[in-house]
């Protein structure tokens, strides 16, 4: 499998665009919660499946139970958007959103899906807007996972090339914290690279 070369310039562009996307997303949630969020600079890593597993284990603590929502997006650019939030944070978010003291399980699932929707829509749309493409969003799915084994891929698939964009959503005062991973692999990395090249061309034109 030929590795796609992602140059320093490409990474710079992606980082900057993701910066803007994260800023937008944070502001969006801040609006919803009527609170102030800490913006986290997104990190970009290029790795494989084993690397991804390791990265997730290093980022997500293993002690808690997490709501993990995964949503696919597709089109000229496609990938997977993953949002991870501890059950404690999810309850806090649900509380804030619903103003009920004891939100039911279904309420929390709803809140988490809503949060994921907002985050993915804001971030991916912003990113794709800057790259002049449109993508489609698919139905997200949520599950509760104990610990940090978020993906179950076996080693046999270990040779995909994956771009991992990761950032955090933090609302300290409300005790709401979540991790965001945006993943693209293989052919989509090439698409991304082509779109970035386009963008750079515009700039130098």
């Amino acid at each position, binding site marked *: 499998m030929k590795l796609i070369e992602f140059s320093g310039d490409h990474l710079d562009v992606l980082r900057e665009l993701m910066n803007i996307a994260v800023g937008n997303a944070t502001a969006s949630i801040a609006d919803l919660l009527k609170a102030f969020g800490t913006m986290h600079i997104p990190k970009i890593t290029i790795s494989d499946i084993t690397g991804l597993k390791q990265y997730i284990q290093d980022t997500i603590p293993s002690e808690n139970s997490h709501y993990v929502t995964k949503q696919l997006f597709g089109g000229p650019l496609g990938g997977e958007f993953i949002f991870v939030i501890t059950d404690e944070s999810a309850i806090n978010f649900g509380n804030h959103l619903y103003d009920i003291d004891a939100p039911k399980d279904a309420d929390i699932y709803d809140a988490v*899906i809503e949060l994921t929707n907002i985050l993915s829509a804001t971030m991916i*749309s912003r990113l794709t807007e800057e790259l002049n493409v449109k993508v489609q969003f698919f139905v997200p799915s949520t*599950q509760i996972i104990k610990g940090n084994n978020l993906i179950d891929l076996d080693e046999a698939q270990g040779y995909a090339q994956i771009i991992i964009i990761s950032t955090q959503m933090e609302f300290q005062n409300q005790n709401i914290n979540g991790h965001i991973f945006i993943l693209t692999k293989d052919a989509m990395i090439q698409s991304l690279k082509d779109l970035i090249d386009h963008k750079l061309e515009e700039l130098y034109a």
Partner: protein
Amino acid sequence: MTKPVDYPNILLDALEHGVMIVDEEFNVVYWNQWLEINTGHTYASMVGKSLLTFYPDIDYRTLQRKIRTTLRLNSPTFYDASLNNRFIPIPRNKITSSVLNTMQLQVTISPYVVDQRMVMIAVYDISDLHELKLTLQQQMKKIAQLNVELQHDKQIIDDNLLIVKTDGEFHIIEVSKAFNVFFGFEENELIGWPLQIIYSDKTPLSEYTHMKKTLQDLERWSGEIEILSKQSKALWMDAVVTPWIDHLGVLSSYTAIYHDITDKKRLELLATTDPLTKLYNRYRFDEIFDVTLMREHWKTGDSFALVIADIDHFKHINDAYGHQRGDEVLVRIAEVLRRTLREGDTLARWGGEEFIFLLPHVDALRAILVAEKLRVAVEKLSLFVNVQLSFGVSLFVAGDTQETLLNRADTALYKAKENGRNKVELL
């Protein structure tokens, strides 16, 4: 108000899922045919009215928030499909399964005309999928339960049975906890070693050969072997070794289960009879030999002889006909020997295929004659196979001990074998 019949509407009515268009206040602007059929509400009755009129019980706060988010972000929002229905209840007609009475819906809310605050809500029936998911979850629970029980049983076996597992080359790959504890080994001490290292050298080579051959024929082998503990203490074990064949029919491993028979062996030893032939055993014979040597007054012309007889080619008989037949031969030989001996003679089973005699009140010639008589009696036996014995004779002379007599008889036996078998030799 009737539904317009134009291409967009024909298309929307042809869809296999529900499509409605509503505004922020839940007023219905459009209601497609799928919805008409499955909810029982017609286009005419729905359009212009609020959803609240027909579905007062759904969570409108959530719905409104989702609609607003869709409009604000200009991007679709979704209901979580894994939970019980949070949107409108649509009855499900399936009779043959009882899990879901209303459809499990996948609901997508997409922006339609944003400045008029209108959204399109699409519903898909994913009941079958959901049922499968629930069944799967149930099965997984059952499997988890079974696993717990299995683990429990495994633990009991590991704690209580002496088990050693080897690969196809008899290298140890697994040892049960009980085995390690019983024999004094550390947890992984024996892994990788050939199975042979735990066996003492008292186990005859023929036993191994037989074991290997039986196993290579992919049959279970059982027998008695002596195992050395970590402290080099020798313990007799009843062993059952089973070859395991994988799903492709290829030999994958051997499992040996041992049972401590130290006590049984001890009892056997103390008992005086050989269980198979019912002759005296070695232990008893030694006693008699001792007495014979010590108590009596022997002189030339009135001495006693020690005779050792060995079955010729007994291994071949065992290999050709199997152990059970081999045992039969031993029993029949024992019988004929016993019948042929004189009053006062002592006969015992000395080893696997050896017999030993004490002939009192004989001289050399007499001893040879008796031995010869025995030889012929065995030769004349009509069995499924011809059997013959070779005899080694030693006559007591002053100064002889048990050892010297045994040695001479052994050497004589050897000579008889060398000289063609089915013979009597005296030294």
